[in-house]
């Protein structure tokens, strides 16, 4: 199958899966009695509530309710977020950049550390560095992000006061023009190094905590691809040419091992998204994760459901992007089937 055909097939499936996700989310909203709470704003009179019920066909059979709900969804009407006192769609817009910035920073840490550790482990297979890298990555997968975050807070925030909580220092932040909503990127685009330093100081700790857990998958994949690559003929050929071992590893083995490793980056992004819930809670990072935890405690269904929809959407898009990248990186892979 051609890359193009495969991508068309993937893209055709995408709306279908998103529709499936919407059915799940809709089903969940029906667990909780009258779903009118999703749309209700504070201080509504009984008449206004009744009007809402009519508008979203809540007195009609379930399929009609689903159609009305889905119609609202497609128009960008996800209901009213009680915890943020604003329409859900507006809140997503104001918070999504914070979560993506954190996830991307953590992802960069996880990918760089994962590739480095995986390479060492694969080259020094069954020796000390391999065991150490392996144990370290398993430890990453076994450590609850919320606990690791709390542990780092004590020395670095409480005792040393190196890294502040939250996302920014307010006066510095408000002096910037915001292009992307990602604070560190905006600071660079403004050419404001003080603001960039401020952004990094806030970003480092939560990103390290989040990245540590996501790293495990990448180390494992990189290690086994490295082991495989090191036994390939092109590595022997490169050695026979008289290339120093360091360059054999860097130019030949590692470059080839990176291709299969890209496949797990999408998977680890799912880990970054779900890990961000606890990390944002602990580090008071004003993203989607912090929003959903406060919604859970307040019983704010509209927010919780919107959160599920938006994270599933982001997760699918990242996986699609990874698949496309992989398809172009390795034309030998058999697609589809």
């Amino acid at each position, binding site marked *: 199958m051609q890359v193009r055909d495969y991508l068309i097939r993937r893209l055709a*499936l995408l709306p*279908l*899966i*998103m529709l*499936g*996700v919407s*059915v*799940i*989310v809709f089903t*969940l*909203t029906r*667990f*909780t009695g009258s779903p009118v709470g999703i749309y209700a704003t504070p201080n509504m009179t009984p008449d206004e509530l009744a009007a809402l019920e009519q508008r979203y066909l809540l007195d009609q059979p379930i399929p009609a309710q689903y159609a009305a709900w889905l119609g609202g969804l497609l128009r960008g009407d996800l209901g009213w977020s009680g915890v943020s006192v604003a329409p859900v769609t507006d809140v997503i817009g104001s918070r999504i950049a914070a979560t993506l910035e954190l996830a991307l920073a953590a992802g960069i840490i996880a990918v760089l550390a994962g590739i480095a550790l995986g390479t060492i482990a694969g080259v020094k297979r*069954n020796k000390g560095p391999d*065991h150490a890298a*392996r*144990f370290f990555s*398993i*430890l990453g*997968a*076994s*450590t*609850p*992000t*919320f*606990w690791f975050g*709390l*542990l780092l*807070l*004590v020395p670095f925030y*409480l005792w040393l006061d190196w890294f502040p909580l939250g996302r920014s220092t307010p006066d510095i932040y408000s002096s910037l023009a915001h292009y992307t909503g990602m604070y560190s990127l905006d600071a660079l685009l403004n050419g404001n190094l003080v603001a960039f330093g401020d952004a990094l100081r806030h970003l480092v700790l939560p990103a390290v905590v989040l990245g540590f857990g996501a790293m495990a998958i990448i180390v494992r994949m990189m290690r*086994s691809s490295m*082991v*495989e690559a090191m036994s390939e003929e092109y590595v022997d050929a490169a050695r026979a040419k008289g290339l120093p071992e360091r360059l054999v590893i860097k130019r030949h083995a590692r470059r080839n091992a990176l291709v299969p490793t890209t496949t797990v980056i999408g998977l680890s992004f*799912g*880990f970054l*998204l*779900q*890990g961000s*819930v*606890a990390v944002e*809670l602990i580090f008071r990072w004003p993203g989607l994760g912090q929003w*959903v*935890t406060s*919604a*859970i*405690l307040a*019983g704010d*269904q509209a927010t*919780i*459901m919107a*959160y*599920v929809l938006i*994270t*599933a959407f982001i*997760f*699918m898009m990242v*996986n699609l992007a990874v698949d496309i990248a992989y398809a172009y990186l390795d034309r030998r892979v058999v697609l589809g089937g």
Partner: protein
Amino acid sequence: MSSLSSVEMGSTKQSVASVKWARRREVAREVLQNPLTVIGLVIILLFLLMAIFAPLLTEANQPDPYQSPRDWANIDSPPGVAGHVLGTDSQGGDLLYGVIWGSRLSLQLSLTVVISTLVIGTIIGSLAAMRGGRLDNFLMRVVDVFLSIPELIFALAIAAVLGPSFRNIILALVAVFWVKYARIIRGEIIRVKQAEYVAAARVVGDSTWNIYRKDVLPNAVTPLIVQATLDMGNVVLIGATLSFIGLAQAGLTEWGALVSAGQSGLLAGHWWVSTFAGLAIVLWALAFNLVGDGLRDVLDPKTEGR
């Protein structure tokens, strides 16, 4: 004549069984060669003993043993003070008690979720692979939909809708975790179905159910064993995250809830509550991850971890 053939059949059966056992012994020996796996097994054994003998280690609190007894005279006691080996939290709850009785909750959570999702996933995955066609297509699209929502986020939404309680955390995790097993077993069965011995059984005229039961399933379960071992740890990690966020009932001796209870004290310098409770989670997850990783190396030659 007929008696002779049944004797012959019996001896073949016996030798098949002994080959199976020899293979199992070989796998066990290989697994035990990895020191990290052995460490994992020892930690698991200690946790099991702790969970089983919890009432002997610390006297059960009445009426609910899964709520720590309160020592109001000693709140926020550091470890070792007033008979509290691991200290107390801000409510005077004994942390050692919480960690010990928490191991029972972790065992209950992981066993319930892993066993029931293993069964559900195997049934659905087997149906899809054995029937094929439209049913397979439909079930796999359902699996795709489930897999497109990150596990923790999916479980979090379900538990939030059901309301905060430990039982609902278990239900939410069951609803989410079966998917992986369904996908794995389907892939394995499709692979095994192409083997010659399955074709042979078909030629002999065995029923589909018999082929599935005797030839297909036993040869397809290996990756499930690895995944189930890893999930014994993962389930506790995700369950602890949910109760940390506040989805378990208040005061429960669940490890994630204990970390949460210690959170406010942490910044006041009372480091022990969150630290020890979290350490229990790490050790539990680490143990099952080490064993699962070791099993994968031995059972799945593709990863060639050795």
